[in-house]
């Protein structure tokens, strides 16, 4: 069968809402798009641990500390599920991790913002995980089987992340005036970057159309962003906090909120590497990797020793 026929059959198969599995034929561009998207997603989970890890030792109570620790551990797990999903496409994990550490690979820009107060742990869980969940719920229906399955697992784990974040916001919002101000300040700083997580507006995201056609993406950036805003604004109101957007207004006709202009210049600036923490995040990640070298060496030494012990036993018998 020729390439054109194969691609037609592939598209028909997708249009019938069928999933693609690792050994199935797929266009090269589909494979490449998935490797890029899944690995960027994995890197985001991994780098995403850094802003929160910053606060584990300073959590205000043991309850908050175990919750944050468990959340950060989950994010490590999410990274691993996703690297595994990427590997089913024939790429080596070490190559992907190498690209992250060398600065060649991208990860979500949201993690290049600093976490300056404990309230940021609340805002991140509530808004950043909330935005990630909106995207990930959609990806549970993505056309590539291993990616979709990883997403189902991840979504099951994510809901606790968002709840623990919202709970932090709730206690701050109901606390002293100073604590409430901390919560408001965190919302002010995280609101707009969270909206940017969905990516450029539809008219400016040229690759989206192909991804939608391949059913990798099932909803457009603007659709997801709108859903997130409509869900989140009432949650902010419940907290008694103000969303930092003077143009935010309920639109009865579209049954959704109208919202103000996003500062895309800021977005592209952070993507390009000029965000407040890009350099720090990367150097922290490299440092963590290097400092973990002895663990990998020890694991190898242990495995070699065990293998030898087993072989000796066989010989002795």
């Amino acid at each position: 069968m020729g390439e054109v026929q194969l691609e037609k059959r592939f598209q028909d198969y997708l249009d019938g809402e069928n999933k693609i599995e690792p050994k199935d034929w797929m266009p090269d561009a589909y494979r490449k798009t998935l490797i890029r998207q899944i690995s960027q997603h994995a890197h985001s989970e991994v780098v995403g641990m850094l802003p929160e890890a910053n606060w584990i030792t300073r959590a205000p109570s043991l309850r908050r500390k175990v919750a944050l620790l468990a959340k950060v551990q989950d994010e490590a797990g999410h990274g691993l599920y996703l690297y595994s999903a990427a590997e089913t496409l024939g790429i080596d994990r070490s190559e992907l991790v190498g690209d992250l550490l060398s600065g060649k690979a991208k990860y979500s820009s949201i993690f290049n913002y600093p976490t300056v107060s404990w309230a940021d742990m609340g805002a991140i869980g509530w808004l950043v995980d909330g935005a990630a969940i909106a995207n990930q719920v959609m990806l549970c229906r993505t056309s590539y089987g291993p990616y979709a399955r990883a997403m189902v697992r991840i979504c099951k784990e994510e809901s606790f992340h968002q709840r623990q974040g919202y709970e932090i916001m709730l206690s701050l919002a109901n606390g002293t005036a100073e604590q409430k101000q901390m919560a408001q300040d965190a919302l002010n700083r995280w609101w707009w970057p969270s909206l940017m997580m969905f990516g450029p507006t539809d008219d400016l995201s040229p690759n989206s159309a192909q991804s939608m056609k391949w059913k990798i993406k099932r909803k457009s950036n603007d659709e997801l962003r709108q859903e997130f805003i409509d869900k989140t604004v009432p949650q902010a109101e419940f907290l008694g906090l103000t969303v930092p957007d003077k143009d935010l207004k309920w639109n009865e006709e579209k049954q959704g909120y109208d919202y103000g202009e996003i500062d895309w210049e800021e977005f592209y600036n952070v993507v390009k590497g000029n965000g407040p923490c890009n350099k720090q995040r990367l150097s922290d990640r490299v440092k963590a990797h290097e400092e973990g070298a002895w663990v990998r060496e020890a694991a190898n030494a242990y495995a070699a020793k065990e293998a030898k012990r087993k072989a000796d036993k066989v010989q002795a018998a």
Partner: protein
Amino acid sequence: MDKPNDNWKIWEVFIRSKNGLSHKHVGSLHAPDADMAIKNARDVYTRRSEGISIWVVPSEAVTASSPDEKEPLFTPADDKVYRHPTFYEIPAEIGHM
């Protein structure tokens, strides 16, 4: 910088969620040997009591049927409706059979 654990094998992980059910494939991971693959699988795939037993198998040990053989392998079963109970007509008064 050393290349990240590039000599570690990929292992497929299967988990039995409770006795009475079979082990089910849940994903894969990297580990230097089988013992550590089990330990890693515990951390990566059973953080919320998802299982009571783990199997790990080196990915390279799995032999899979090829998608190209899907037709010759599986279509012969499609037209054998007589292998299903609904093919046989039993009077209603007999009840469930």
